[in-house]
């Protein structure tokens, strides 16, 4: 359905995304993981043809056989909401405060599907039911500020689903929410993807969330896709030193509390250094300079992609880690 080949996005000659290639098959749930500034959000925007005007886009984005990377804005506009829709991070600021919930959800349907007011309202009501909002009839006439954070995010999802897109891009959709609300939104996204046979690109820095929702994941660092594979496998057995660092650095409750004997747990592991600015990224492997197993050649040479095992897993590293000993 989506075929992305050698997609690069650069600002002032600096590549924020460097020749990314991946497919999004129908109904697939793909996680896009990395620290802020790694290029995941701008990749997501590029999937809707909404990369910032200052970005130079090259490579190919093929949607259902149609080449879209250089497509005119008008064509992209007809694809948005109908083929691809997006859910953003901050559910309050992402909703127009002056419009009623019903009008927010109905507007794309009136525009793209040419529904009349009544039909659009009826469908908006059904969508609210689908995303799990109680008392939908009353909600239609409310304003965003009258809803809770979780409900706002559900409204945003309902608006995104309004024209039955084949792909939903969710950019950190739960970061701004309470943990228990976030969990329910994650389950909703997964369920919607299954029941609608709709592909989902789920962007997050939260590995637990990615594990909960997606089947496959891409790890991005400094604009490169450094590792990809089935989510469960990749999390259990990372082969790129960055992925490994990311997994070890994630906060866990047991790492933060005292042990049974009262002694403190060891400190959280962290990746040394910080993500360099776009202009200061190394020419070769983007992770050079922070990598614990770096070799002299790494900073100058961009590693090729190695295919691991039966072809499902790929890693962009000169010296990928050895497989972890997974207990049988």
């Amino acid at each position, binding site marked *: 359905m989506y075929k992305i080949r050698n997609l690069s996005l650069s600002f002032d000659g600096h590549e924020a995304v460097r020749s990314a290639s991946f497919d999004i098959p129908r109904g697939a749930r793909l996680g896009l993981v990395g620290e802020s500034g790694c290029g995941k959000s701008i990749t997501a925007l590029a999937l809707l043809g909404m990369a910032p005007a200052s970005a130079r886009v090259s490579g190919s984005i093929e949607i259902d056989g149609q080449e879209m990377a250089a497509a005119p804005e008008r064509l992209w*506009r007809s694809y948005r*909401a109908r083929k691809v*829709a997006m859910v953003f991070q901050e559910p309050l600021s*992402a*909703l127009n*405060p*002056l419009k009623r919930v019903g009008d927010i959800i109905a*507007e794309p349907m009136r525009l*793209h599907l040419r529904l009349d007011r009544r039909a659009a309202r009826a469908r908006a009501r059904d969508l609210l039911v689908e995303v799990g909002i109680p008392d939908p009839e009353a909600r239609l006439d409310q304003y965003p500020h009258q809803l809770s954070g979780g409900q706002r995010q559900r409204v945003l999802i309902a608006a*995104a689903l309004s024209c039955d897109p084949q792909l939903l891009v969710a950019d950190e959709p739960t970061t701004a929410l309470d943990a228990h609300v976030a969990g329910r939104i994650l389950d909703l996204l997964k369920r919607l993807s299954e029941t609608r046979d709709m592909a989902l690109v789920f962007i997050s820095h939260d590995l637990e969330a990615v594990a909960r929702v997606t089947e496959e994941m891409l790890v991005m660092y400094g604009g490169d896709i450094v590792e990809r594979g089935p989510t469960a496998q990749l999390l259990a057995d990372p082969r790129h030193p960055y992925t490994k660092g990311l997994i070890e650095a994630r906060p866990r409750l047991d790492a933060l509390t005292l042990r049974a004997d009262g002694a403190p747990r060891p400190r959280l592991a962290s990746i040394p250094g910080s993500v360099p600015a776009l202009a200061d990224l190394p020419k070769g492997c983007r992770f050079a300079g922070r990598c614990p197993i770096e070799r002299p050649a790494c900073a100058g040479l961009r590693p090729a992609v190695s295919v691991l095992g039966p072809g499902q897993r790929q890693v962009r590293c000169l010296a990928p880690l050895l497989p972890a000993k997974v207990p049988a």
Partner: protein
Amino acid sequence: MPFLLRRLAGLVATLTGISLVVFAVMNVLPGDPALTILGLDSTEDARAALSAQLGLDQPVWARYLDWLGGILQSDFGTSYAYRVPVTELILERLPLTLTLGLLASILTIALATALGVFAAARHGKAGDWVTMILSQLGIAIPAFWLSILLVLLFAVTLRVLPSGGFPGWAEPLEALKSLVLPVTALVLVQASVLARVTRASVLEVAKLDYARTARALGLSPRRVMWGHVLPNALVPMVTVAGMQLAGLITGTIVIENVFFLPGLGRLMFQAINNRDLYTVQALVLLFASIVVIVNFLVDMIYLLIDPRLREGRS
């Protein structure tokens, strides 16, 4: 809605306060109306008799209450200079000033919105620069000087529009023609200010997440602008437009005098020269009331625009 009642009570209190200030100021100003009316040759006795007839020998508070009581019955007193009821003077000239003011307001808002949106949509490009430079000029040029330039160009050189005067409403087309230059002079200055506010406000809102959400749902730039960005950019625009109305009122006083238009502004100017106390008082009160009422309407418009404000007040 108790909020509305509170606001209305405030409105009445403000207007009463204004009447007090207006009356006080006019009564401490130097100059004896009787002397002005009768001239320097008049005798002391004649002036005293006239003062008594006009009620000027009464104590100040009694005169104030008398004046206020009259106003409540739409009697603003009798003009010393014209010897007719002030109400009559005002009603005669009101249509002209009202037309001038309303035309100028409507055109200001329309022009400023169009220019502000145009500039914001072309942010950083040539169209934006040209609009901003022109509006800067519009702000810098005084209205009376612009009027003179307009008269020189359109009335003296091109001879397509009258340089001043007003033919009366009997000939509507001619009447409107004589308003073209005055309205233009008023609008160019006010619209320049409002256009810049509009542009800044629109640019601010266009950066926000919900503008991006609207684009992500496939809305055209025009729909995003007029349906989502502009409504959210309205609050600062309405604030400034409301304040501009005060500028428009002082503007009409100047412009009516430049173009010899027999409206309230010109009446005010003449009444001040003639020490026509009741007329000046009535006009100042009228203009002040317009400003206060517009401010009240601006508050009501905020509530219409933003549901979050409606909720906080009810």
